[in-house]
Structures are given as C-alpha cells and as structure tokens.
C-alpha cells in the first residue's frame, strides 16, 4: 500500500499509482538514441573497443577459413588420387603416412581454433569491461536523475549488442578475406574447391560468438553499477 500512500502524500495530481507507474519511463527508442549518441560521440573509444572485437573475430574466422580451404584442397587431392590409381586411397602405398599427417594437421587446427577463441574472448571482454567501468560516474548521475536500474542495462545492452555485431561482422569479413587471399595466391582454384555452406555457418557462428561475448562482458558490470547506491557509483574513481 506504500506505493499509493507515497503518491498521495507527495503529489496531488498523481493519486492513482497506475498513472504514476507510467511516469518513469525510458522507451527503447530513447535508449537507442542515447546509446547511438554515446557511440558517435566517443567514436575513438568505440573504435578501440570495436577493434578488440574485430581482431578477435578476424583471427577466429581466418583460422576457420584456412581449415575449410585446406579440407577442400585435400578432398580434391584425395579424389584425383583415387581417379588416377583406380583404387581406394587408403590402399595406396604411403597412405598410412598421409593419414597420420592429416591427423596431426587436424590437431593443430583444433589447437589454433581454441587459441583464437580464447584470444577473442579475452580481447572483447577486456575492452567492453573497460568501456563500462570508466562510465560508472555517468551511471550514478543518471540514477540521480531518476533512471531505474533497467534503463542503464537497456542502454548498455543496445550499445554492446550493436558494437558486438558490427565488430564481429567487420572482423569476420576481414579475417575471411585475408586468409582466402593467401590461399588463392597459392592455389587459384581453391574458391571452387571450398565447402561454402560450412564456411558460411562458421562465419555465422563467429558473429554469434562476438555478439554474445561483448554482451556478456558489458552487461554484468553495467548491472553492478546500476544496482549500486548512486552515491557509491558517483564516488568511483577510474
């Protein structure tokens, strides 16, 4: 009952709490406008944060591109070997050795993918985390002006999602493009030999990873700042 009590006590025009409820709002459109503002105005900062994402995802996608390209080439070579000898590749002399070599290469690939995932995770988390913590004061100020916790989360959600998606997209194109170029220089028919369905799904996967990682890095600290008493958030020195 406190709610209606408070409303009645404090404002004569707002005796109906339902009406009061509507009076602290931040629409998604307004939140998006403020976030957009933030990115544009702090373009330098956003670019550094974005660069962390771009580089991480570019590394990941380049490794995947190399994997798909190599697999395409190997499959083609195996096929032509079968065609030439007229029998199964496994039965050809030295097949055992080739199989061992292939397995070692696979292990190397996996290792590279895991490494690049780690690198992108650390890079993205680090840059997102920094860009939130340096704005604790601003978060405190907004709360003084009447922002609810979820307004803060909303703004950072939009900002980090957009940064994450854009950064991952640029990173994926960059990583893919550079690695593909390297392979094309070595073997010009690689484009025809690659499994493009798989390549696309890898790129899609990388976009999801980039976006989710930047969200995961931005939202928890933003929530922590939003839940702090404003006095504490305002007193934070970065």
């Amino acid at each position: 009952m406190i709610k209606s009590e408070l409303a009645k006590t404090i404002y004569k025009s707002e005796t109906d709490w339902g009406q009061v409820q509507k009076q602290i709002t931040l629409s998604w459109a307004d939140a998006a406008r403020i976030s957009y503002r933030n990115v544009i105005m702090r373009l330098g900062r956003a670019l550094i944060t974005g660069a962390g994402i771009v580089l991480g995802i570019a590394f990941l996608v380049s490794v995947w591109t190399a994997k798909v390209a190599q697999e395409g080439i190997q499959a083609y070579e195996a096929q032509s070997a079968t065609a030439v000898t007229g029998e199964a590749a496994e039965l050809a002399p030295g097949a055992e050795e080739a199989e061992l070599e292939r397995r070692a290469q696979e292990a190397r690939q996996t290792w590279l993918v895991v490494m690049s995932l780690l690198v992108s995770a650390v890079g993205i988390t680090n840059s997102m985390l920094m860009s939130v913590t340096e704005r604790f004061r601003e978060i405190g100020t907004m709360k003084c002006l009447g922002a609810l916790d979820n307004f803060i989360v909303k703004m950072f959600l939009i900002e980090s999602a957009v940064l994450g998606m854009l950064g991952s997209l640029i990173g994926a194109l960059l990583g893919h493009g550079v690695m593909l170029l390297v392979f094309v220089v070595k073997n010009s028919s690689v484009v025809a030999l690659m499994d493009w369905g798989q390549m696309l799904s890898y790129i899609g996967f990388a976009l999801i990873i980039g976006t989710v990682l930047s969200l995961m890095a931005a939202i928890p600290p933003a929530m922590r700042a939003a839940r702090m008493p404003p006095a504490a958030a305002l007193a934070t020195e970065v």
Partner: protein
Amino acid sequence: MAKIRCPECGHVEETTGLLTVCPNCKADLRGVMEELGHRRERLREVARDDSVTTHEFIVRTKDLHKVYQMGEVEVPALKGVDLNIRRGEYLSIMGPSGSGKSTLFNMVGGLDKPTKGTCFIEEVDMAQLDAFELAWLRCRKIGYIFQTFNLIPVMTAIENVTLPMIFAGMSSDEMMERGAMLLDLVGLGDRLHHKPYELSGGQQQRVAVARSLANNPAIILADEPTGNLDLQTGKEIIDLLKELNEESGVTIISATHDLKMIDVSDRVVHIRDGQVERIENRADLDLEVGSMGAE
C-alpha cells in the same frame, strides 16, 4: 530585493519596488522592469511545489547513523543526526571536509542508505521505498547539483537538461521547449547545443542548475556547488539559487564550506565529527552583524 542595471549608464540600483527612471541618468527603465517581472514569473513557475500535504518539515532525519566499511576498519561518518528542514527554506550544511556533510547530503537525497536511523521526505520514510519509488522521487521531487557538475559529457546542454524529462515521460516538443526555457533562465539561452567541454565551469554549473529544475522539484540538493568555481562564478551560482528559492519557494539544501553561502542561507547547520554542532538562524546572524557594526 532586486538589482537593476541601467542599460544607458550602467548604474546599478537595488530596489524592492518599481523603478521607472534611472536615478543616475534619468533613462527610461520600464523595459528593464518588465523583463525582470517576466523573469520572476518564470522562476515562480519552474519549481512549483505542488505537494498536497503541507507538513512544516519537508525533510526530517532521526538519529541518522552511517558507518563506512573500509576493509577491516569501520569508519563512522554520521553519529546520530537529528535535523528538521522547513519547506521553502534555504539551508546550508557547513563543516570541514570529512565532517560528514556530504554523507548527510547523500542520505537526504536518497543516494545512499543509512546504517541506522531514518530519513523522512514529506513524512515518508525513505527506507520503506522500493527501487521504483526511489527513482521516481529522485526524478520528480529532488533536483541535484554537484561539486563536479556531473553533466553527461556526450550530451549537449539541452540534452543534459532534458534527460530527466525523458525519464519522466514528457513529450519531445514539450521537453525541448522547457529545456530551452530553463537554459535561458540560467543565462545560457545562446548555448543550447554546446557540449559540456565547450563550456566554462560556471556555465556547466548553470546547466546543472537548469537540469535540477527539469521536473519541477520541491527540493534542490546542492553538494558543494561552488567548490570547483572561482569567487565570481561561485557568487553567481549562489545568487541564482537564492533567486530561485525566493521566487519559487523551492527548498534548497546545500552542503558547503563556502562562507559566501552564509549570507543567503536562512539557517546554517554546522556539522562536526558526524554530529550537529550548532544551528544558526539567519535572524540571529543579522543581529550579530548589526551589533558588531554598531560598536
């Protein structure tokens, strides 16, 4: 009491009544007077206290304690503060740094929770409020002014002023109109679209004053509003706050150690070591100054 500056000869006259001609050069002052009347009207409008209740005390604290946990050590910042603040009062909280005045300011503004004791606004216990109600109180009932201005650096002056109006759900047109009016009122009518870093300290604090008025607050809380300003700009901010207090009846509570504040305060609360040391009334102060002058 208002200061009137003659546009012809620059003569400044303090007057309470109507002044139609400049006593110095006999120039026509009706235009100036009209403008002044206009300004007063707008000032009266911006911080209308539209509470239903008319409790004598707009803010009341009872046995307020705050203990900060600094690692292993407990540091008491407030040790039982009882304070009653009247509606429409200009109150200064004075004390050396570390005396607990900023802590008290944070408690009264609902920016931090007391360890023990209660703080009432309009006789509503703030500890009873949930997050939404607190946000609502901060948004519509209280205006904050800080020593470090705390403007949002990426937003222009008018965007800073209209931000609390966005939270209050005001329509865009209404918002821009009111924002421009408030900035004009604090003397920044020509700086609407400047970013904080393009403004001087005094101008930034004016934007902060305009922002504190965004949603017709009943209370303006100012934490060392002149702390980062030079003497002259500090004086201008104090005058602006006093003008607001006189015209609109908004309650002003200001933590400060700026002695210029004493001149305009109705009451001065001296805080020392987390406790109220003494409270001075304006009337007594006047008396003291008067008797000193007579000697």
